[in-house]
């Protein structure tokens, strides 16, 4: 008996030991109990959120809740050692509406489907099989399968619907094979002649109908009301004629030319229209002749009519499998990134929503414009919508993510695992007044409140205040266009004995200005939500999307800043310390530079010192190009003048330098800067956060440059030791000299020929380190012109409700702070109401 009891006890012990071991592989997921409502506000509420037509952020707002991408980004648990409870640092992409990662079938499709024209040399990157998630359904439980995807793509590309989002699938890097032919079927699409073949009028042939065609027989047109990126910086000829009229143009034939333009703003190129064009632009004021007319040409491409959708690169290859064929090779992160959105629509509602406009060929669709016309396949569904008032979402109980066991994460704050989407409902209402939003937030009725100017002093140091940087760096653009400045000085109204502008063009002077201002102090004074800007490329730019690594964190970028701000790295323990020491403010260096500028200006005859008091006789009034007066500009200029006065005290320019606001220039401010008619402005560029390399074009391409009139990147050489080997080849470092424009072009994928050798350092061709070296070198070279002096890193500040917290506090350009998926609640709705009541309905932040 004792033996038996002992055996049973032993068996029980074994069971007790084995069971926990057996369950080791299964993570314990915590459960949420209660209601968690996310209360949000918008200034304007969209009236339509059709995935095929949305344009604004208001319109895309509901889409985030109602849809799921084929692939999705999540925080990377592997990079998060929960033991130490460190926050997440990285992200990974995983299938969502897809069941698996895409499988490259380029070779197979190339052999079986010649209609897609996959290049003979291509072995990968053109065709992918995507297995679909079989659990995916619409909110009503109807299955989503391959037919849904194919139908929806056909609907998206339907030429008669003219959907705004159609171009996302053929004009960018993600281009579905032949999608463009289907979308444009039976039409002529035009591109700017200057961007294409740059045909002169003599190169063209006149057709039987009198319309000129190019060497390939494509019709040519005149871009009357068609944006010309290369020639008119994205404006149209009509824009200029409307703005300047007879001041610059001969308007005698203008109306006749305008009347010939079609809906695209293109007039067919005939002898008659050519004559009208030459007449309009051939004026002394506009400075062009018939020889310049070809700059206004647009090259047409006639798309075949009745194009068969079977030739478009999306195919059903199984009940839950589609094959996507691309017109341009794409792989890795960029492929998955482009598939992180979705295009599917619910056929029944979509078809029912179509309406023809009168007797015309135009159609509209009311899909996704009300509760009745909306069908979700995402984590939430729309249950209430009131125009200009509110919309409410609740959990979509048919969304696969709630039951597939994959939508979980570990909270670094406690190391426990939780299901994503703790939020049970989303209430969004229109609250246009910022003051009302603030009061609602303080009463616990909103989850967030974007700080207004008056709030910064009170809340910027709150533990609930979060700063979100954006891509834009605002810099001072400094006028270096000596010819324009001398013309301005030659005017009768300009008193050269009292004023001077030429000194502005001296590098020593501009360098002095660059170290006159403490960037952070400037932000605090004029725009507290922003932070100091130090380089041309902001802190948000990611150079390696796979890892999320940011450009400004690289050694190359740090060295670029040290060089620009003349920081001796050897004096610091590390490069990081050296960079951290940069404030942009060095009054001692600034005073020396102003003195140097004075000497140079005197020697050049820009200024005089007739009374020999060691001070300039002339004052420098720097005209700030103001689009319209605002409190921000007034505050900024006051601050600039105050600090300038402090720094130039005791120098030859004491009391002689002043920023002066121009008359309101409206949208002309950039043209005035480019023409050298105004001397400075806080301007900025922003690009894709995932492509810092593309920014170099903005500083080396005359079409975009603010300083194109006085800085020609094609004449400035840069010599670098770079690895010219392609990825996968043995390292081959060479010393290469190219001009800045060539370096920029090569960095962005163009093949550049130098001394008979071709170079290309584009994405996927050159290794990342080489590309970073080139980028940092271009940034340094452009900075050293002192045409651009970085001042502010754009950003915003917002308070987060005490009801919730971010699992990850650090902002990531891809993940943000996790969004609604990772939002964690400190209180459920009932507890929150009680907490707010305990605090007399007025919370302290």
């Amino acid at each position, binding site marked *: 008996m004792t033996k038996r009891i002992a055996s049973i006890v032993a068996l029980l012990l074994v069971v007790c030991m084995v069971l926990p071991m057996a369950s080791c592989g299964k993570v314990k997921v915590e459960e949420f109990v209660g209601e968690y409502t996310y209360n949000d506000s918008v200034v304007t509420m969209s*009236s339509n959120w059709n995935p095929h*037509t949305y344009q604004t952020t208001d319109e895309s707002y509901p889409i985030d809740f109602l849809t799921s991408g084929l692939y999705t980004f999540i925080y990377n648990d592997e990079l998060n050692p929960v033991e130490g409870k460190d926050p997440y640092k990285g992200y990974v992409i995983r299938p969502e509406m897809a069941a698996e990662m895409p499988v490259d079938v380029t070779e197979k499709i190339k052999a079986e489907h010649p209609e897609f024209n996959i290049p003979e040399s291509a072995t990968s990157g053109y065709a992918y099989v995507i297995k679909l998630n079989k659990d995916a359904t619409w909110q009503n439980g109807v299955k989503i399968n391959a037919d849904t995807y194919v139908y929806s793509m056909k609907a998206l590309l339907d030429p008669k619907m003219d959907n*705004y989002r159609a171009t996302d699938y053929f004009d960018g890097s993600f281009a579905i094979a032949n999608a463009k032919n289907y979308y444009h079927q039976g039409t002529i699409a035009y591109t700017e002649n200057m961007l294409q073949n740059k045909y002169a009028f003599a190169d063209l042939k006149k057709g039987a109908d009198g319309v000129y065609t190019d060497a390939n027989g494509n019709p040519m047109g005149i871009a009357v009301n068609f944006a010309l990126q290369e020639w008119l910086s994205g404006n*149209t000829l009509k824009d200029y004629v409307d703005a300047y009229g007879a001041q610059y143009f001969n308007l005698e034939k203008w109306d006749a030319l305008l009347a010939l333009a079609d*809906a695209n703003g293109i007039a067919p190129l005939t002898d008659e229209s050519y004559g009208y064009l030459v007449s309009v632009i051939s004026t002394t004021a506009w400075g062009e002749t018939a020889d310049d007319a070809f700059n206004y040409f647009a090259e047409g491409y006639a798309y075949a009519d009745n194009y068969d959708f079977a030739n478009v690169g999306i195919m059903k290859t199984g009940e839950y499998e589609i094959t996507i064929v691309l017109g341009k090779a794409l792989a890795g992160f960029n492929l998955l990134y482009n598939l992180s959105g979705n295009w599917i629509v619910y056929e029944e509602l979509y078809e029912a929503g179509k309406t023809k406009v009168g007797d015309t060929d135009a159609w509209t669709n009311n899909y996704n414009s009300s509760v009745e016309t909306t069908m979700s396949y995402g984590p939430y569904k729309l249950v209430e919508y009131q125009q200009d008032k509110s919309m409410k979402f609740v959990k979509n109980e048919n969304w696969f993510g709630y039951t597939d066991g994959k939508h979980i994460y570990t909270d670094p704050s406690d190391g426990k695992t939780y299901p994503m989407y703790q939020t049970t409902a989303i209430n969004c209402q229109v609250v246009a007044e910022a003051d009302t939003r603030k*009061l609602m937030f303080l*009463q616990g009725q909103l989850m967030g409140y974007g700080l207004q100017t008056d709030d910064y002093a009170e809340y910027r140091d709150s533990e609930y205040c979060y700063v979100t940087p954006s891509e834009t760096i605002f810099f001072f653009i400094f006028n270096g266009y000596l010819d324009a400045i001398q013309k301005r000085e030659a005017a009768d109204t300009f008193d050269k004995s009292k004023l001077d502008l030429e000194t502005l063009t001296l590098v020593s002077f501009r360098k002095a200005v660059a170290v006159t201002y403490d960037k952070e102090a400037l932000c605090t004074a004029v725009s507290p939500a922003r932070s100091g800007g130090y380089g041309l490329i902001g802190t948000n730019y990611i150079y390696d999307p796979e890892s999320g690594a940011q450009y400004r964190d690289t050694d190359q970028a740090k060295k670029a800043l040290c060089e620009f701000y003349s920081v001796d790295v050897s004096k610091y323990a590390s490069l990081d310390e050296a960079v951290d020491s940069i404030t942009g403010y060095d009054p001692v260096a600034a005073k020396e530079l102003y003195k140097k500028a004075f000497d140079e200006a005197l020697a050049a005859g820009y200024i005089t010192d007739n009374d020999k008091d060691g001070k300039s006789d002339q004052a420098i009034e720097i005209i700030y190009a103001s689009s319209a007066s605002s409190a921000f500009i007034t505050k900024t200029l006051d601050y600039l003048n105050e600090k300038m006065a402090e720094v130039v005290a005791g120098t030859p320019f004491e009391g002689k330098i002043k920023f002066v606001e121009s008359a309101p220039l409206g949208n002309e401010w950039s043209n005035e800067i480019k023409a050298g008619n105004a001397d400075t402005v806080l301007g900025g560029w922003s690009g894709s956060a995932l492509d810092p390399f593309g920014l170099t074009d903005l500083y080396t391409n005359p079409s975009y440059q603010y300083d194109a009139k006085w800085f020609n990147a094609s004449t400035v050489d840069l010599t670098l030791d770079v690895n010219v080997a392609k990825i996968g080849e043995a390292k081959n470092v060479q010393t290469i000299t190219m001009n800045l424009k060539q370096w920029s072009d090569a960095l962005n994928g163009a093949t550049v020929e130098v001394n008979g050798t071709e170079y290309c350092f584009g994405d996927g061709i050159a290794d990342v380190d080489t590309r970073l070296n080139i980028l940092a070198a271009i940034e340094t070279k452009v900075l050293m012109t002192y045409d651009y002096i970085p001042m502010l890193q754009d950003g915003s500040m917002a308070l987060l409700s005490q009801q919730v917290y971010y699992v990850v506090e650090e902002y990531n350009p891809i993940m943000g702070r996790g969004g609604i998926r990772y939002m964690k609640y400190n209180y459920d709705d009932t507890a929150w109401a009680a907490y707010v009541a305990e605090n007399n309905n007025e919370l302290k932040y």
Partner: protein
Amino acid sequence: MVKYALQRTALMLFTLFIITLMCFVLIRMLPLAPLPIGDPHTAVIEARREALGYNKPYLVQFGIFLRDVFTKWDWGICDSAKYYGKDVAQLFTSKLPASMIVNLYSIIFSIPIGIALGIFAALKKNTWIDHTISTLVMVCISVPSFVYAFLIQYILCFKLNLFPLVMKGGTDWFSWPMFVSMMPAVLSLAFGTIAGFTRTTRAELTEVLTSEFMLLARTKGLTKRQATVRHAMKNCMVVVLPSIFGSFIGILSGSLIIEKIFSIPGVGELYLYSINALDYPLFILLTVFYTAIGLAAGIVVDVSYGFIDPRIRMGSKK
């Protein structure tokens, strides 16, 4: 009276037609809202414009407009970004109830208080009570309603937590929670209206109370209360009641700022929006509607004089 009312109505319709024609032609003479190049909306809007005859003579366009309105009740489609593709008539009618109900509550709230204060001030003429009420009336009339709105929102809604900060969502216009959520806006609008009624009532009643027939009534032996209620009030109402009718017409227009502060999904911002966004179909609908309302209000007020005071026989050619 019936004949007079019919005459006025016919005249009103003719006036409305002329105003509509003028507005329509002037609006169509303005440059059209520029359409973004390459935006698919552009093609749809251009197609709509073509269908509406934008390239035809103005009178033909007006004919198409009248045909669409009278045969299909089609006032057009919004072309501007915010309401792109929405039927303007549906958009307007969907936003009308919120404005109407807030204004209605405001007037219902204001009438008894305004008249009571006016009577009280008139009866206590030239006393400190009258001076206090008159001063408050001046303040209320002089200070814009949005100032009250901010004060009410901050004090009553935020500090004292008596009402919600913004109007409740939904279309349960006559539910208790909706009523409570409308109160801050109602109060904000009411101050001015109360002051208006008070001033009118006080002025009329003061004048009537000093009339000779009131002296006669008192000498007949009536008490002051009897004389005031039976004689003075009746005469005073000849002016006050039409102004009440006029005020009711005003409930159809929204208040841009009040609606914005309290997030009321009303018509207040539509007019300004239609002008700023160059949304001509919306602008024409609003112009016609408010012109019609204004003209109708004139008739209602004029006709009401006859009902209130039988001595008034307007348009009589006896």
